[in-house]
């Protein structure tokens, strides 16, 4: 949540997640802390505002109350970063794109020491962001409840915000079966893209013959344009650990792994810290919260292979092998890590569990639409005014997300298409934006929900080029085990080159469609089976762009 209820003692929250870091959050956070410690005036080396120095030093000598400057996770509107929220008696104000030099001016405002009102403060006024705009107003934070509020590096903050309360309650009051019952009732479906009913998966693992079980968190968020899981990992890691621990209890696992892609160093660092803190607090390890339940969790870091997001490839990678998928069945729920039944869920799926237990499965199921319950986090990017993270109820229309919340095309042009589902998904044309966002509707349009990346494509981008972009990605990421994917994607890329370069023939178009069908039908794993989707969906909705690319000879 970004906007908080009014509070007596003012406080600053500065986003220190990757997105804002790349926009300069670290020097800003340091400058804010320095200014807060100095009572408003900035120390040497950090340019203070041009306010009268006398006023400021007078304020400092009066030893003002300490001002909390909290480092938090994602504050949603990533494109305006670095973001700083100021909570006070009048509620929350949000600022974007502040330079470290403006830190002193902001701290002066917070302390009421500024000589100008906020609305006239040249260092700040153009940076204030409207928290009443639809981008914030239409969000429904459940998974991201604590993201942007808690300091992700302090377990005390997470505990104060309610983390681990459900784990404790579940361990003391509920049987594993009762936990699974709530998850079944919630209608939660896997948030990694597949949409498999989570309760059913948990049951499958739990009901295997007695023996060891594992629980695995798939944090190998590889779809280009997707950064939801990263925000949870960086912004509220304890919520994920709590959800995972509840899952482990529900299926009878005592050991688990979090598989994180190496491209997310900050997420890995914060996750490791969170694990260590949770162990110290007795919330992981032997006899958790004074019960007989024990759970060891380990972080495993990927090494740059998109295919490892596929569950059987991921299991191989955790075991120190090449990330190569295998045929299913047996499903990992039956035979996974070292042959033992293994529960694999995505970050967002686990992070949704604590709120389901807290409010009850039926409460959760009342949100969203038939068949797609609850909320979903999307990362909005591309040709769109407001880039960032939104959590919305399922069933909301694409138009609401892209145009109302996202603000549409930044240059005022029309949106051409929305790409969902990454390299496995497809492009939805602007005239179908009234489609509700749910698993079935997106599939019926030849795209898919995917993990939640939503990339908006503007009028200036040609669709065969988009298709080629994704095919180049699939060529690069194919593991090489099965021929349709290894060789088929290369051939598809060569055909798409011809369309992009306007030298295709009618026969090429036929070959393109035939090969897409073949690769889709015969590849071993999801990567190959879905690799033709960007081509098929653009052929379906933007066919004229392909036929227009046919050369004169055809």
């Amino acid at each position, binding site marked *: 949540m970004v906007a908080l209820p009014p509070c007596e003692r003012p406080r600053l929250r500065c986003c220190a997640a990757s997105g804002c870091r790349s926009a300069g959050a670290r020097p800003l956070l340091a400058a804010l802390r320095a200014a807060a410690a100095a009572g408003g005036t900035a120390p040497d080396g950090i340019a203070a505002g041009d306010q009268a120095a006398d006023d400021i030093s007078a304020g400092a000598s009066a030893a003002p109350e300490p001002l909390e400057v909290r480092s938090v996770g994602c504050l949603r509107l990533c494109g305006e970063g670095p973001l700083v929220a100021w909570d006070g008696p009048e509620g929350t104000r949000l600022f974007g794109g502040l330079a470290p030099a403006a830190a002193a001016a902001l701290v002066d405002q917070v302390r009421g020491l500024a000589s100008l009102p906020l609305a006239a403060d040249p260092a700040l006024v153009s940076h204030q962001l409207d928290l009443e705009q639809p981008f914030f107003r239409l969000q429904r934070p459940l998974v991201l409840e604590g993201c942007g509020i808690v300091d992700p590096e302090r377990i005390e903050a997470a505990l104060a915000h309610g983390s681990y309360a459900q784990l404790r309650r579940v361990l003391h009051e509920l049987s594993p079966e009762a936990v699974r019952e709530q998850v079944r009732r919630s209608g939660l479906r896997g948030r990694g893209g597949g949409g498999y009913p989570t309760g059913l998966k948990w049951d499958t693992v739990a009901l295997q013959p007695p023996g060891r079980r594992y629980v695995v968190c798939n944090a190998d968020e590889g779809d*280009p344009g*997707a950064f939801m899981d990263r925000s949870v990992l960086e912004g509220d890691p304890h919520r994920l650990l709590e959800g995972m621990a509840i899952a482990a209890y529900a299926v009878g696992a005592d050991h688990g792994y979090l598989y994180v892609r190496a491209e997310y160093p900050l997420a890995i660092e914060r996750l490791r810290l969170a694990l260590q803190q949770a162990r110290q607090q007795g919330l992981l390890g032997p006899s958790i919260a004074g019960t007989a339940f024990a759970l060891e969790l380990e972080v495993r870091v990927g090494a740059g292979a998109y295919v490892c997001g596929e569950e059987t490839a991921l299991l191989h*990678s955790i075991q120190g092998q090449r990330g190569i998928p295998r045929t299913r069945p047996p499903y990992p729920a039956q035979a996974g890590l070292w042959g033992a039944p293994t529960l694999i869920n995505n970050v967002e799926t686990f992070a949704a569990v604590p709120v389901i237990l807290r409010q009850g499965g039926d409460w959760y199921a009342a949100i969203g639409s038939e068949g797609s319950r609850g909320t979903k986090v999307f990362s909005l990017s591309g040709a769109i005014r407001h*880039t960032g993270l939104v959590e919305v109820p399922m069933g909301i229309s694409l138009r609401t997300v892209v145009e109302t919340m996202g603000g549409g095309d930044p240059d005022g042009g029309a949106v051409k298409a929305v790409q969902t589902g990454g390299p496995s998904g497809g492009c939805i044309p602007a005239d179908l934006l009234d489609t509700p966002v749910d698993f079935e509707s997106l599939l019926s349009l030849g795209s898919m929900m995917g993990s939640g990346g939503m990339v908006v494509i503007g009028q200036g981008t040609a669709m065969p080029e988009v298709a080629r972009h994704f095919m180049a990605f699939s060529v690069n990421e194919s*593991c090489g085990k099965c021929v349709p994917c290894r060789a088929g994607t290369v051939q598809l890329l060569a055909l798409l080159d011809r369309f992009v370069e306007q030298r295709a023939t009618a026969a090429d178009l036929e070959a393109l469609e035939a090969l897409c069908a073949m690769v889709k039908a015969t590849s071993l794993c999801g990567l190959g089976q879905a690799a033709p989707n960007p081509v098929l969906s653009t052929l379906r909705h933007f066919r004229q762009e392909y036929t227009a690319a046919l050369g004169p000879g055809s």
Partner: protein
Amino acid sequence: MSAATPVPAPGAEPQIHLRPGPGPCDGDERIARLIRRQGRQGDGLIEVLHQVQEIHGYLPKPALLQVARALRLPLSRVYGVASFYHLFRLQAPATHRCAVCLGTACFVRGGGRLAAGLQRRLGLALNQTRDDGTWALEQLSCIGACGQAPVLVLDGVLFSAPLLDQPKALDCWLTSLGLPAGVETR
């Protein structure tokens, strides 16, 4: 490689016969230590390779041999893993690395033009290193900084690229980042 008999690590099972690398390879105490710390588990191979790469900047052949011996894995398995994953380097990295993101958000926001500009400027194709080892140009597929798209990573620091439609301004910006200009070494 010499034909000398490999010296088994203390306590190693003798059934795997690896040809030894150049002399000092097993003597890399840092690698030996990190493998001891990791508990000599074969399933920790990827973690071990990450740490070896942190030490050397890449995965030199002698180090792979040492890892194979110490973890009691066939070298083929170690090499297979090292060559499978994109982030493991089997060659020494260039002094400076410029990586351009070509993820979807960056692509939609002109990442292709940025990549073309960088190729021209550095005189390198994507995923190519200069012969003198000073500069490498790499491509990334999404690092999750879509809010700042298009982005490039210069020696580990992420930058958001402005003004793609103004080649001169883009060039000025690249100069300010310290990228060499107008190189003819191709």
